[in-house]
């Protein structure tokens, strides 16, 4: 009760267009209090990997009670999508959630699932830490960076129209409010996680007003965090440096389109979407962790899926909840299991099944 009131009170009124997400989720780690979290197992391999996460959390003794919600088979008119109003209310109430891969049904008359979640929950920042997994060899060994992507506007505003036949215009929108919001989160994240440097990625030499506004907002926020280094990097150089020498980057904050591309590029550096955790931050301190890979219908139900991405995302969720020691234990267990190499799923070149991998992780906790 007290917690909930604290949460509601901490959402500050919007002042001059700046909406502050509470800097740290004010969940206290009072012993015995279980936190309720929403779980969307998703489609395809989703349910299996969600089970793995639940198993690992049980073994680690994490005090979380899951509320499971599934994508419906009919469009809910209140949300205009296959996600029901109850599911969304659940996330709004619990403030934390974990989402597995969801396959968007094709067709008209409904919004895409990701779009629904984003709009209804006000998810404005997508955070992806990309760390090379020790023991899993890729061409890059020392990647240790975090990409923070503005998730609501920019080039993905969806505002396009055909001017005359054969000429199409698409609008890219940058607002001060959204840029400030994501910059605030980026610097707060950097501070809370002991990161030293934040780099704003842009193309302001060409798109002077739009990316110029984004940079201005980042600079304003940077002044409030003098202990964190701030730099601005043009996207060309950023791409080149990422593929040549990714160790030079720490935290990257970017508008929507660049963020999309760069975060996938960084996922590629560490081994692909099957190993990359991700977390969406929303208005009012909502944290929805998700696995960004697909639902892989061809291996669904065969106990072959790799639960790493969902597990690492769940660890991100735990850190948001400030269960840091439990998060560290689970994280280390996962890293150890992969590093040892005895139990690896097929996509990492091994022969273990999902359950074998999960059991190995549990053993290491």
């Amino acid at each position: 009760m007290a917690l909930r009131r604290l949460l509601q009170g901490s959402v500050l009124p919007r002042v001059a267009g700046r909406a502050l997400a509470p800097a740290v989720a004010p969940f206290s780690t009072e012993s015995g209090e279980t936190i309720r979290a929403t779980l969307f197992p998703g489609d395809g391999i989703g349910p299996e990997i969600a089970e793995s996460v639940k198993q690992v959390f049980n073994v680690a003794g994490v005090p979380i009670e899951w509320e499971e919600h599934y994508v419906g088979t009919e469009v809910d008119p209140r949300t205009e999508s296959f996600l029901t109003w109850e599911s969304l209310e659940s996330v709004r109430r619990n403030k934390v959630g974990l989402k597995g891969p969801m396959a968007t049904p094709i067709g008209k008359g409904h919004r895409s699932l990701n779009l629904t979640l984003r709009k209804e929950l006000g998810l404005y920042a997508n955070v992806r830490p990309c760390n090379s997994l020790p023991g899993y060899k890729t061409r890059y060994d020392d990647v240790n960076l975090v990409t923070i992507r503005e998730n609501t506007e920019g080039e993905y505003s969806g505002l396009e129209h055909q001017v005359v036949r054969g000429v199409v215009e698409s609008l890219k929108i940058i607002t001060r409010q959204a840029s400030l919001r994501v910059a605030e989160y980026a610097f707060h994240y950097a501070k809370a996680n002991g990161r030293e440097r934040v780099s704003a990625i842009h193309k302001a030499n060409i798109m002077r007003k739009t990316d110029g506004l984004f940079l201005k907002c980042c600079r304003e926020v940077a002044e409030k965090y003098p202990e964190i280094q701030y730099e601005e990097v043009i996207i060309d150089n950023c791409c080149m440096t990422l593929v040549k020498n990714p160790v030079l980057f720490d935290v990257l904050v970017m508008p929507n389109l660049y963020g999309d591309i760069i975060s996938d590029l960084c996922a590629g550096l560490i081994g692909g979407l099957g190993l990359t955790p991700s977390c969406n931050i929303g208005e009012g301190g909502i944290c929805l962790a998700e696995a960004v890979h697909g639902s892989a219908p061809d291996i669904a139900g065969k106990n072959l899926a790799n639960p790493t991405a969902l597990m690492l995302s769940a660890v991100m969720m735990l850190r948001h909840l400030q269960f840091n020691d439990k998060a560290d234990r689970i994280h280390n267990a996962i890293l150890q299991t992969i590093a040892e190499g005895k139990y690896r799923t097929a996509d990492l070149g091994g022969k273990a099944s999902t359950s074998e991998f999960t059991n190995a992780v549990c053993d290491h906790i």
Partner: protein
Amino acid sequence: MARRSTPLLRRLLAPSPSPSPYPSTPLAGAVSRRTVTYMPRPGDGAPRGVTLIPGDGIGPLVTGAVRQVMEAMHAPVYFETYEVHGDMPTVPAEVIESIRRNKVCLKGGLATPVGGGVSSLNVQLRKELDLYAALVNCFNLPGLPTRHDNVDIVVIRENTEGEYSGLEHEVVPGVVESLKVITKFCSERIAKYAFEYAYLNNRKKVTAVHKANIMKLADGLFLESCREVAKKYPGIQYNEIIVDNCCMQLVAKPEQFDVMVTPNLYGNLVANVAAGIAGGTGVMPGGNVGQDHAIFEQGASAGNVGNEKIVEKKRANPVVLLLSSAMMLRHLQFPSFADRLETAVKRVIAEGKYRTKDLGGTSTTQEVTDAVIAKLG
């Protein structure tokens, strides 16, 4: 006359055969050249004028290197140099006039000040001369270790519209809009150029890079144009890939890509990623071409002119501009000069003794240039 016979004489009198650019011919090792010859038309050897823009930052250093090498080869080009700097409001009319006359230009980078006032002169030149295709050739150089092998990608990027239309305005304070414009006309001609390039250079596959799942109308129009042109080239494979997946695949499995055709912004990103995996923007040549004119420059990231330290210490990498000038020589139909220059540069890199800092060495620009001149056959 003397200019043309000197290289011939030198080759005849050379004690050792220069490495053949066609190593698969059986006689490659024995005699220097036993391939079907290039038969020029009378007068083809007349020197051609090329506009030279040294540019900012490392530009003057590296264009100076090109000049030295061209002189050493006695290449039939003469340079008309013009000073242009990135902070000028526009490109001077006389420069444009010169490029229109010569049809070909070689330039160093022009640095655009970030965030205010001046629009990019690189972009302005491209729009003014309607150089609608930007081409970057990314390939592994033998002897230069990179994390990725088997890279041989050509990125062809639409150069005039898309996100770089420069149409921005502030709607109300704190809200800015930027227009991305895609037209059928421009998409069609870039697709045509890409397929024609693939056809003329014996390339097997063209991949269109897009984000049409989100930008359905704009990138949808681009894709439509590509598909139409693809039908006219049944011998060339065509496929499409979303830009974020493309970047991921480039770092994981670059050998699957051959020729890539993209709209403006994605082309910028993809070209930089491809250049990075193949060795860096210090070595990947490129150029911009239109119906009537061509400008050759650093392949990717033309606005990147290095920092003052490199300029001071004169350690800029001239390889990229040397390779771009080899592209230029081929474009001007001087194949033998192009081959010699390319071979010399490749041999210097393969040897590894003279390399600038971005390739892991410590040489100065002049040392690399001298090494290239020494290796000219």
